[in-house]
């Protein structure tokens, strides 16, 4: 497979993750308060180190505004990282890599905050593997394009992401996220009971997929399925939103959620192409 295709798919995926997250941080919210408002964790620091009463700290609206500014600063970082993704080449200057590393580590931190916000549910962290992992795989590829290793890393990221989503869709260990059900009810004419049963099946398939992509004879077809299903679920956010009404407000609220999830389809596509290329060569 042409190296340009690989680079294009990696760059497009990474760009969309950064641009989607930038939009989210600049205009909406991010779970920084799950850390900054954690009374058990931060009260000793706020009161002990800074001498500010906890009640004063969490009811100070200036501090709330500052937290929002911090979120927006992260949005600017993601925006810069998105620009760097467009410009970066194998022989680009070091600062571009640094920006990408910063963006990537911030995405890991964001996944941690989401994990913390959801009461430390482990799949909540790993379901973002493709989103933060694609940054580091791009950086790896720019440095030393070893296709076999690249494919392996991509498969690991795909497995972690789909496995985590599958665990939620099962609804056995953790409750099914209401979003999953709502989107299916909005987009399809199915009943809620049927949707829950269907999600169980989808969850099983996602979990199986996480293992089957490592079996050489099956990998190609499983990755093809992952590309299709990952793309559908990414676009489901905006499609579901548009069922409420077709308006700029809906695009404003839901489009960025689709953008940073397109990586769930594009990277399986890349892995599929790499697998096909490697097996034919």
């Amino acid at each position, binding site marked *: 497979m042409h190296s340009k295709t690989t680079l294009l798919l990696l760059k497009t995926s990474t760009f969309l993750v950064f641009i989607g997250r930038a939009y989210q941080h600049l*205009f*909406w*919210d991010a779970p920084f*308060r*799950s850390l900054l*408002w*954690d*009374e058990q964790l931060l009260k000793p620091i706020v009161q002990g180190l800074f001498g500010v009463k*906890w*009640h004063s700290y*969490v*009811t*100070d*609206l200036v501090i*709330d*505004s500052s937290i*929002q500014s911090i*979120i927006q600063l992260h949005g600017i970082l993601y925006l810069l990282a998105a620009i760097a993704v467009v410009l970066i080449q194998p022989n680009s200057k070091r600062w571009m890599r640094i920006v990408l590393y910063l963006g990537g580590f911030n995405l890991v931190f964001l996944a941690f905050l989401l994990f913390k916000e*959801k*009461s*430390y*549910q482990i799949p909540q962290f790993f379901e973002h593997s493709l989103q933060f992992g694609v940054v580091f795989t791009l950086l790896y590829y720019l440095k030393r394009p070893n296709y076999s290793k690249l494919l392996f890393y991509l498969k690991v990221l795909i497995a972690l992401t789909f496995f985590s989503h599958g665990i939620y869709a099962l609804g056995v260990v*953790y*409750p099914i996220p*209401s979003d999953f*059900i*709502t989107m299916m*009810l*909005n987009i399809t004419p199915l*009943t*809620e*009971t049927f*949707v829950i049963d269907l999600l169980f099946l989808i969850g099983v398939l996602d979990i199986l997929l996480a293992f089957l992509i490592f079996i050489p004879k099956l990998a190609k077809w499983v990755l093809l399925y992952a590309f299709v299903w990952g793309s559908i679920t990414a676009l489901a956010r905006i499609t579901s*939103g548009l069922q*409420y*009404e077709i308006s700029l*407000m*809906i695009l404003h*609220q839901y489009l960025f959620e689709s953008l940073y999830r397109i990586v769930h389809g594009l990277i399986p596509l890349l892995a599929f192409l790499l697998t096909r290329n490697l097996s034919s060569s």
Partner: protein
Amino acid sequence: MYFCFSVSMLFKQKMIINTKNILGVKEKIKHKIQYNLLLFFLLIFSNSFATSERLRLVLTDNPATTVMIGWDQVSSINPIVYYGTSDQGTNWQSYSFSKEVDRVEIYKGMNNHFAKLTGLLADTNYYFVIKDEEGVSNRFWFRTAPSSNKALSFIAGGDSRNNRTPRQNANLLVSKFKPNAVFFGGDMTAGDSDIEWIEWFDDWQLTTASDGRMFPIIPARGNHEYKNESVYNLFNVPSELNYYDITFGENLFTIYTLNTEISCGGEQVNWLNENLINNTSVWKSAQYHKPMRSHVTNKPEGNDQYNNWAELFYEYEVRLIIESDSHDVKTTWPIKPCSKQADCDEGFIRDDANGSVYIGEGCWGAPLRNSDDSKNWTRDSGSFNQFKWICVSEEKIEIKTILIKEYPFIEENSNTYICKIPIGVDIWNPTNGDTVTIAKTDQNKPYIHIISPTGENPLNNEDEIIIKAAVFNLQSNLNLVSFYVNRRFIGSKTIPPFQFTHNFKAGKNIISVTAISNDNQTYTDNVRVFVNSKDDSEFTIYPNPFSGSLFFTLPNLKHDYWYVSIYTLSGKRILSERIIDNQISTTQLSAGTYIVKVFNGNKERVFTRKIRLYN
């Protein structure tokens, strides 16, 4: 029990040592007797109290006849609730009735026990204790709700996480207000962890009054309750999916508790629809966690809730909706869903006759967010810890917002008064007043509303100003709509469009529109408008162009002052002061063109001019 035994053993050990070392045989016997007496009293003491803690009363059924008692059975076994209508203190044998536990759920670090008391008499005090193998609890009591449509009072709020101080203060206020029930809109804790829930229920004991009276809770699930089980297992609510309804009185007031953490459509909306169709309550209300239209900018809009519930609420006259989550404060005017109408703001428009009032949004004991996303139908908004005090009668609902803080003194309500604000408590008093009133809509009344002019801005005097009105209640069999300006009749219409053109005099004008139905029901709407004077020969401003100072010739009004405001052409006000000796200094202005507005103290006379400043 273990503690008392340990203390007694230590004491015994010490006594034996002392006796051996210092005293003779007689002293030994004396101290042995004293030890046994001590042990006796300690054992009596330890056996006085059952090990039932973190009590909660929950309403799961008809509140006139049924109350659910929940608690954490910390140790011991076989707890039984003994209860009756006369106060027997902790003398459990004297209570008329007993109830064994219906359900046990070991959850969130607690051994949750639930006993549902049924067949109770309405509007009656019930006293109870919980006895187990180790002893008897303190005596508590509650009052069942009336079965008639007597007036009731409620406290409504949500979000008590991450800020324990106001949470405790709010809980204490519950014990002073003494509501018929507390509607709690979710997000009790931050992390849904064992230790947080234990602390939450420890703090909930502050809602118990000093005389042992407890107040029931009707809880909803928030996004920080990570599973439906968190609410179901800790409160034993009637539905595992955390949506249910409770009706008070004969049919006075229904509260629908809904769940925004599952799909708002699907089976939940089907259930809601079916229930609303058959509900004949005088008042219907709803509580749920995430708002349809948050008043905090960065929070997402609740489109799922809006699309599934908003139209139902309007169609079936759910007149009061309680929302949480955003950690700010809001009250709205009565509103209804809309789409492409003028003044439709984020899917809602005012409907004073038939709309629903939305209140909220959390802050029982939570960190605060800036309330920075008001809509054109927002009545008032703010950011502070609060809950709502709701008084319901057949004629109306009145809502006040209570400030949560540490009060130096509060005189608590008596157990017989309803809807009283305890002395010493502060009520929020924003621009539009401290009380939101929802009055009963008489379907036979022709509710007319003046659409324009709105009175918000002065009107420029023109030959024709159009007065437009609309009747919202189309079932009223409208007969006539009459128009008045300053109490003078100017015309009437029998069919829409209801509008009239009128020449207004300069100054203050009062427009009234009265609609009369075929059966002589009437309704009137008023609006006050100011009209700028066209013929303002009494007023001059000079020189124009000007430099340095501006001079005015003004009408001679007794006991009044004149003021001037100067604006740039883009509308920015750059100067505002009182006119003294018919002049003002303008040395601070730079060259350019400005709009000058001159007005008297009550703005009855307003003059506007465009002037130019040269350097």
